[in-house]
Every structure is written in structure tokens, then in C-alpha cells.
């Protein structure tokens, strides 16, 4: 009993911080979401709106497009980073690779760069008229690459930038997971005549599931709330081609000071994120409903 109390005592500071910075703001956002509140309105006070903000969201094509765009972005980056990260992890673990330690270090560097700096650097690389990317794409391939007029160019550049920044994180996670795998099941599978693909699919992937699940969740949640990198690269443009949900919420809450509607957007986005994560969890672990 005494031990249990001491345990709670140790947990108390972290619980308190989590309560103050996590739970309290969440309740506040939940509360604000039921009001029409814009500090630049004729009446700048909170006015009860009930579920009106949520009702409006369902018909708000800009919001829905932004959400859909974010899901497409998240799908592409998470899947690509997972595939690329796995290939790189295997390559960097290969004994035959000369200068392995050097490449591991170099490869990890993007993770330590702040997202805002990543966005600014990629913008400099890609800015029409001056950037080296449009210059060489035109020179070598005759492509008129322009992230400020072509929606596809901007969207794909946002994906590539995210891959450059975050694939090393996936690589490191998978390397840790692969290194920790026991050798016996792999050897057994080889003895049983399994080919490489079969060993990968039936032995490695199941054993890597906890690592894969954690990595996918982290990257999915990050991708769904991308703001700073995108803001620096395209500011959500051209037009609204890269206005992902995080950026859309920021624009509504801060420059537009539409706090009630912004709060409702945030909560709906959180709900979508939770549902997606749960579906993914169920798909990857084979769990159904509330069964254990």
C-alpha cells in the first residue's frame, strides 16, 4: 500500500503538468467550440452557438478540401517513408557497405534541423526564378517547374521535403527494431526453405509490428499536423493547393480570430485523427472491436 502511494507521488508532477497543459486546454477548446467568438466582431464576447460551428463545418468545402488534402499528404508521406526507411535501414545495416558509420551520421542530420529551417531552405531551393531546382529541371529536362503556380509541383515538393526531413527517423526506428530481432526465427525460416520475400512478410514483419506501429503512429500524427515547414515552403499555396488542415486551422484562429469555429475545427480534426489511428491499429494488429 505504502509502495503504491510512493508510486503515485512520483507520478504526481508529470500528471499535474499533463493535466495543466493537456487536459485543461482540451476542455477549454471543447467549451469554446460551442460559441461564436471573434474578438474583431461588433460583439466580441462569447455568444452561445450550440452545435452551429460543427454543422457549418460539415458544409464548409474549404475545410473539407483541406482535410482531404491532408489525408492524401499523410498517406503518401507515411507509406513512402516506411518503404524508404526500411530499404535504408537494411542498407545501413549491411556489413558490405563501406563507410557505414559515416553514412549513418550524414543520413541522420535532417532530423536535427528545425522544421522552419527545413521549409526555408527548401523554399530557397525551389523558388521560381532563382532556385536551383527549377533551374536544373528546365536545363536538363525542359520542365517548367513552378511551386507558386502549379498545384502538383507544390504538393509533390511538400511530400519530398517531408520525406527528406523525416525518413531518417523511420530508418533509425526500424534499424533499432531490426537489430533487436532474434536470429533464430530467421534461421529457422531459411532452413525451412523460405525465400527472401516470404521471410520478410511472414517472419520479419510480424516481429517488427510493435516498432512499425509506433513509427507509423508518430509519423501519421506529425503529418496530419504539418504547419511550419509548409508555411515556409508554400504558405499553403498556390491558392489553396497545400493548405493542410493545421495551416487552415491556424489561419482561422489567429489572423482571422475566429476562435469558436477554429476550436470546432480542431476538435473535429482530433476526432478524425483518433478514428484513423484506431482503424490503423486494428488493421495492423488484427484486433476487432473492444476484444482483447
Amino acid at each position: 500500500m505504502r509502495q503504491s502511494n510512493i508510486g503515485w507521488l512520483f507520478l504526481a508532477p508529470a500528471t499535474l503538468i499533463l493535466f495543466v497543459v493537456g487536459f485543461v486546454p482540451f476542455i477549454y477548446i471543447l467549451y469554446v467550440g460551442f460559441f461564436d467568438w471573434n474578438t474583431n466582431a461588433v460583439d466580441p464576447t462569447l455568444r452561445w452557438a450550440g452545435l452551429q460551428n460543427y454543422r457549418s463545418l460539415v458544409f464548409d468545402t474549404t475545410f473539407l478540401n483541406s482535410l482531404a488534402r491532408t489525408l492524401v499528404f499523410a498517406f503518401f508521406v507515411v507509406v513512402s517513408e516506411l518503404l524508404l526507411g526500411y530499404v535504408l535501414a537494411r542498407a545501413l545495416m549491411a556489413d558490405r557497405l563501406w563507410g557505414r558509420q559515416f553514412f549513418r551520421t550524414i543520413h541522420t542530420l535532417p532530423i536535427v534541423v528545425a522544421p522552419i529551417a527545413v521549409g526555408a531552405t527548401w523554399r530557397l531551393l525551389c523558388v521560381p526564378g532563382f532556385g536551383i531546382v527549377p533551374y536544373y529541371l528546365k536545363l536538363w529536362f525542359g520542365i517548367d517547374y513552378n511551386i507558386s503556380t502549379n498545384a502538383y509541383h507544390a504538393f509533390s515538393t511538400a511530400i519530398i521535403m517531408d520525406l527528406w526531413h523525416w525518413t531518417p527517423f523511420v530508418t533509425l526506428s526500424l534499424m533499432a527494431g531490426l537489430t533487436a530481432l532474434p536470429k533464430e526465427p530467421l534461421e529457422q525460416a531459411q532452413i525451412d526453405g523460405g525465400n527472401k520475400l516470404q521471410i520478410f512478410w511472414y517472419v520479419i514483419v510480424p516481429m517488427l509490428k510493435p516498432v512499425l506501429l509506433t513509427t507509423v503512429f508518430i509519423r501519421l500524427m506529425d503529418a496530419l499536423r504539418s504547419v511550419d515547414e509548409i508555411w515556409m515552403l508554400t504558405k499553403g499555396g498556390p491558392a489553396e493547393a497545400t493548405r493542410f488542415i493545421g495551416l487552415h486551422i491556424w489561419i482561422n484562429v489567429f489572423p482571422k480570430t475566429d476562435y469558436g469555429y477554429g476550436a470546432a475545427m480542431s476538435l473535429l480534426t482530433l476526432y478524425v485523427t483518433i478514428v484513423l489511428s484506431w482503424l490503423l491499429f486494428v488493421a495492423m494488429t488484427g484486433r476487432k472491436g473492444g476484444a482483447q
Partner: protein
Amino acid sequence: MNSFVKAVGVGFISLGLWSSTALAQDSWWKTAAQPYQGATIRGISESTPASKYVEQVLGPKFTEETGIKVEFEATSWDQMYDKAIKDMEANTGIYDFVYIEQDIVYTYLARDFLVDITKSLADNTKIASPDFKPETFTTFLNYFKDPKSGNVMGVPMEAFIKPYLYRKDLFDDPAIQKAYKDSTGADLKPATTHEEYTQIAKFFTEYGADKELWGTTVQASSSHPAAFYEFFESVAPTFGVYNWGIDGTTFAATEVNGGQMNSAAAKKALNYWVDLLKYAPPESTSSTWDEVAGTFAAGRAAQGLVYGENAAWIATDSSKSTVVGKVGVALPPVEAGVMEAAESGKGYIGYYDGGAFGIPHSSKNKDASLLFLQYIGQASVQTDWALAGSRIVMNSTYDDPKIVEQDKKMNGYYTLMREDGKLFAGAPPFPFHSQVLQVVAPFIYKAIVGEIKPDDALDQAATAAEAELVKLGYRK
């Protein structure tokens, strides 16, 4: 001998007078700042040539004279607003003085963010400097006065017009003049109409095809409010569409309700402006005011509308600009009747921009900040500040010999600002500035990238603006 004694006597008297005046000047700031010794005041501003001068010169000088430390943050336009507004809304008191751009002042006044400077100085005369005289400022100060009391709420720190800059060297080149005449049948001179402007832009784009030279700059970022500003504050007025096309009384934006945002004139303006992108360098669709200045300074455009805050360095600073000594300045081209409307005070032909420093109610060092704002509002600091940032906020600055000299190098930009500044106007007095901007701007972006036609963009923008104004409670 007699005259020698007299001369020595006069000399001593003059020296005595000079030194006593100088000591009195020094001692006033020191005496006034005595209670605030060791205090630190923090300010935030958009990073402009004028604000950098405050950061690098005026702040340290003030600290030297008063012992009050000045921490100054010159950051991007977006960041500046984000930080300053959050600070004032949350009443955190991080900033003791903030940049108030002319177009946001009505929002700040409506939300009662700012300290009344006139009243504060009247209430505490010990810190009211004899060298701070609001009546010596240009009429730009009026934008920062409370419309009800007429009291000063911000001390102007920069003011400039957005003129039409052109490459004088190219326009004056006989060979180019001949080629232009052969090509168009007209004489090459700065455009006074939109048709002429487009013709010149087209000509120089063809002429500069192998020279990295285009016909015009366009501040047409497809995702930054800079595009909204260039269209509604610099281009639309030259077509006779004022105040963003929103009626100041009924807050109607659509033509059917009495607004002008989607009027025939506004549509003509947007079509003209979007069409100019054909003759603009590729960076134009990602250009804000800074990139436009950069494009012109790099010699990549023959003409353009460029914010005056950049005029001085473009025309005179060879370490940053490749067109030093090659810059001409003129009034923007206009539609028929618009110039007459502006001259009679019924309209305007472009944007009179600038900003002031104000003190938020949330500041924890109001008196020390009041001293600083008066310090930068003295006539004695204006000239060098103007040389560094091509900004003039006091009438006396225009006549300073250093400014007269710089004016010649800038092809008469200051003369243009002094004589024709009245033809330009600041942003409309809307307290819902940012809200309408965020709603309307995406339609302008879509027109820029060709996602929708300019006419449709303005129809949709006007409808959306009205809906937002209804939601905010301004329009019934």
C-alpha cells in the same frame, strides 16, 4: 584691437550658449529617465530599412543617453502581427512598444489595445519632452489619432508612397527608344495609362528575352496577402475602385448591394493586373513586397510598383542594387478621370503606407516607453533615419540638405512624395481588416494561378466578404 576683443567676447558668449544648451538637452533626457534607470523596454516591428535603423542606431543611442535598455525585435510581417496581437490580447506585457501599420491601426483602436500618448504626457509632464512636437509631423500622423478625441495613439516611424519605378537608363536609351517607336508607333516614356503600361511591359519582355529582363514586376504571391494588398490598395484605386470595393457605411461588397468589389471597374482592374504576369519574371507569383524590390534591384524588370521604403537603397546602395543611378520615379498609371478624382479629394491613385510605434496597455514600462517614442519623434533624428530608410514623417525633413541631395539620386522620389503624396491614401478605416483579407485573398490567389477567371474571383470574393461581414455583425 577693439574689434578683436569684441570678436573674442562674442565667441565666448556663443560657446557658453551652445554648451549650456547642449548640457540642458543632455540633462533633460537623463533627468527625465532617472526613475527608470536600468529598465529594459522591448519592442517589436516588421523588419524594414527604417526599423533596422531603430534597432541598430536609435535604440543604442537612447540607451546611451538615458540608461534605459532597448531590446528590439525586427521580424517578418506575419510574425510581427502574430506576436504583437497575441501579447496584447493575452495582456502578457512582453512588448512595451509595438509597430502599428497604418492599415491595422483601426483594429487596434477598436480593440482598445493602445495607450493614449497625448493624455499620458499631459498627465505626467515630467516625462513630456519639449522636443516632441506632434504638430511638426506630416498629416500622416492623423492616421494614428483617436478619431473621437484627436489624441495621438502612435508616433509615426515610417511613411512612404508606392510609386511607379522605371529603368531610366533603358527608357532614355536612344536605340531602345527607336526600337519601341518602330514596334509600337509611340514614344517611350513612363506610362500614364494602363494600356501604355501593358504595351511597355510587353515590349521590354520581348526586348529582354535573352537578357534576364522582363517588362514589369507584379507583387502576385499566390499564397501571401501581399497579392491582396497590391491589387486592392495599389491597382484597383487606379481604376477608381476605392476602399477594397467595400461601402464604408453599409459594408456592402457586391455591386448588387451597393459595393464595388465585383464592379465592372474592379473586374477590369483584376484582368489587367493578372494579364501583366505574362510580362513579369517567374518569381512574381511568389513575390511579396520584399521580392518585388529585390527583382527591381537585380535589374530583372523595366518598371513596377515598388514600395517607397525600398526606393532609397534601390537607387543609391550599390552593395545591394545593380540599378544605382538608373531609377526613374513617376506616378502610377491611371484610368481616365481617376487623377482628377484624386486631385479633388474624391479618390486616390495608390497606397500611402507606413507605420508608427504605439504602447500597448499591457506594457509594464509605459513611462520608459513614452520617453523612447518621444526620443524617436524628435526632429533632430529624422534626417539620418530618412537617409537610411527612405521614410519621411516630418515636414522639416524634406528641406534638409542631405535629403535634398539624396532626392536627386532618387530621381525626385521625395519631391514626388511631398508634392503628390496627397494623391495617395492609407488603408480604409476598417476594424475587420484581417478578417476580410483572409476571406477574400484566396480568390485573388486562384485568379493568379488561373484556377478561376478574374471576373469569377471577384464575384465570389465579394459574396464571401459580405457573408463574413454579416457574421461579424457589421453588415445587417
